């Protein structure tokens, strides 16, 4: 029940900001990230709905400055001023989390491995639990780490590979590249399908 409560608090707090009305600039976002910020499997466009406003705002700033590299997003982010950017971030943070788009077909062994990496890590690879930073059930920690629960597996896997290969570096202390470099293809498939399978609006079963 803890997770449901946390979600309600988020929605309650943002309700006052006028969640229902998208800022006009959101039309640009909707083309790829969906009308409700649900993301798009094709092209690994992440879900934005319910993600922390702080995280979304920082990513937009990083796209604009080049700290995070993506040709499409950089061009868009450069066109936003501070006010618009934070309005968009707050809007997407306030949106209710939609049902998952993907139906992952993880094997039992994959699900177990994904769960293990998320909550416990792997001593043999010197990888700590993802949830240490990303919060219980990957629900995110507002000012430091994005929510992973219910995120598209295709997006998460693409990002882990970017961290691995040096294509993404915009975290604190190069922590994600260090962690991602220890994961193999099977780990990435397992852990991303695990997080994608967590419905962000209901508690994960253990």
């Amino acid at each position: 029940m803890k997770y449901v409560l946390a979600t309600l608090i988020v929605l309650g707090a943002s309700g006052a900001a006028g969640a229902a009305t998208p800022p006009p600039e959101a039309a640009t976002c909707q083309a790829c990230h969906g009308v409700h910020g649900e993301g798009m499997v094709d092209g690994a466009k992440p879900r934005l709905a319910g993600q922390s406003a702080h995280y979304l705002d920082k990513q937009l700033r990083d796209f604009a400055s080049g700290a995070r590299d993506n040709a499409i997003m950089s061009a868009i982010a450069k066109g936003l001023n501070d006010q618009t950017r934070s309005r968009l971030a707050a809007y997407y943070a306030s949106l209710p989390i939609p049902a998952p788009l993907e139906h992952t077909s993880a094997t039992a062994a994959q699900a177990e491995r994904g769960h293990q990496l998320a909550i416990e890590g792997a001593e043999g690879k010197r990888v700590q639990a993802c949830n240490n930073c990303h919060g219980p059930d990957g629900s995110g920690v507002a000012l430091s780490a994005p929510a992973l629960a219910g995120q598209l597996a295709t997006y998460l896997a693409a990002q882990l590979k970017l961290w691995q290969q040096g294509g993404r570096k915009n975290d604190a202390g190069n922590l994600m590249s260090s962690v991602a470099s220890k994961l193999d293809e099977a780990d990435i498939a397992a852990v991303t399908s695990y997080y994608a399978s967590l419905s962000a609006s209901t508690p994960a079963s253990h």
Partner: protein
Amino acid sequence: MAQRLKEVDVVVIGVGMVGSILAKELAAAGYKVVGLERGTTRFTVPEFQSPGIHDELRFDVRKALMQDNTREPVTFRNHSSEIGLPIRRWESFLPGTGLGGSMVHWNGQTFRFQANDFELATRTRERYGKGFLDPDLTLQDWGVTYDELEPHYDRFEYLLGTSGKAGNLKGQIQPGGDPHESPRSRDYPTPPQKEHYSGALFRKAASSLGHHPFPQPSSNLSQPYTNPEGLKMNTCVFCGFCERYACEHYAKSTPQTFILPVLLANPNFELRTGCQVQRINLDSSKKRATGVTYIDNAGREFEQPASLVITCLFAINNIRMLLLSGIGKPYDPATGKGVVGRNYAYQTMSTVASFFDEDVIINPFMASGASGTMINDFAGDNFDHSGLGFIGGAFIGAVNTNGRPIQYHPTPPGTPAWGKGWKDAVIKHYNHTVMFSLHGSSVSQKQNYADLDPTYKDAWGQPLLRITFDFPKNDLKMAEYVTARGVEIGKAMGAKQVVGSPRKGPYTTQQYQTTHNTGGTVMGNDPSTSVVNRYLQSWDVPNVFVIGASAYPQNASWNPTGTLGALTYWVADALKSKYLRNPGHLVSP
């Protein structure tokens, strides 16, 4: 009857920082090594993972990682006229237990001592004259110099990946580092951790007073690092759960992160946990160890024969192991004769609290155990002690190790100790206070020592260690002087109220101060005032080596771990290049 096991080359008693480093060196050199650990195995995954590892009640209050003092306490008294009583709750100091030892719950503050510290008796006499010191003090030179240890400090820091900024590279002073440090051969392996806001305030104020602030060397790493053993470590996330906790991120350097995977993979090494070593066994001449006797978790007794026995226990347990084994003459404070238990010392910790208005936001919870900003201008012999009536000093630092809700609640004097008034004050000051740590040296004196308790026994029927200790006048004067300097910095930060709390006697075991117990098996060049020689080899039983902060003749102004790491590699070198090729006394007694 003890079951006699097959003889091995080396038995290591205690598989903590010292034991795991030494065992790795000797196993890699081809020797058969058995490591005996009284606690359990434990690793970053799964034992140290969140959220369980952040249980403040379990780890801070109930001391889950510490030596089990329902079975194996220590007795304590301030003076030899008193009766020692068992410490039933660890508070003043926190000896750990289990694989990785006390280092699992350390803060990562990784210092070198200064050249002066290793020749303290000689240099103090030279600088201040013969009659300068209180005649009760028993200061001694170490028998080893900084220059001899420098390569080993370097090796230890690169093993850990320590994050810091050099202040003296081969004699060249480096801007931004500690100008008082003794020369180092190269910079730290990783850059300093980020400075938190209290550190930034301290830096500015200390600079304005003409002091020399620098980032505290930290083994909570500032960036990913692969050490010379090939082990990868991660970046610290400033979670604020270092001291008293284990790290879940592979970011705090502990045996689990920097050496154990390599050691445990070596077939020459065998780890046995749940083994309570009762004594080191001697032959009839009492000049040669034949091995050790231990009792396992099932209560079975074993004799493990070995050619070489290395005791690598926490300082106070090293003393006890020698006393229980009859190695070395126990110290007698009445006559000043004997050596084992002599020169027990500690650390003289003071604090300065600077209370700000509510518009100054400190966020103390964003912390690592060693992400401080500090000065050494009043540490060691870095200032003139003429006319001051004491020797030694303290580092002063805004060392913000945590903002944990049970442990951290600074309030100004006059605050009620409980109830609404206390709660209101905690809320008011929690996020608007800067705490300085004043980490003071500790001299040894005749009256402070350790011996076996005449009354109390452990769960196996063996006498407990008894500590007799109070703060020497020298150190209380030092605390007074250095705390006044800390208060000046607090005022220069612009705090509304600055409260200095110099350490006062009598020493109490009921308040946390620091886990830096030293002495009792001290090293030196004179067998009448030291237990071990400069290679930490027993003068009396040359196939026994005793490695720990118990070797320090007195304690310096910094945390002891860096120096212990250097000594460990110093001994490893002596074992491999000298002793094991030709066993015998490395220094003739």
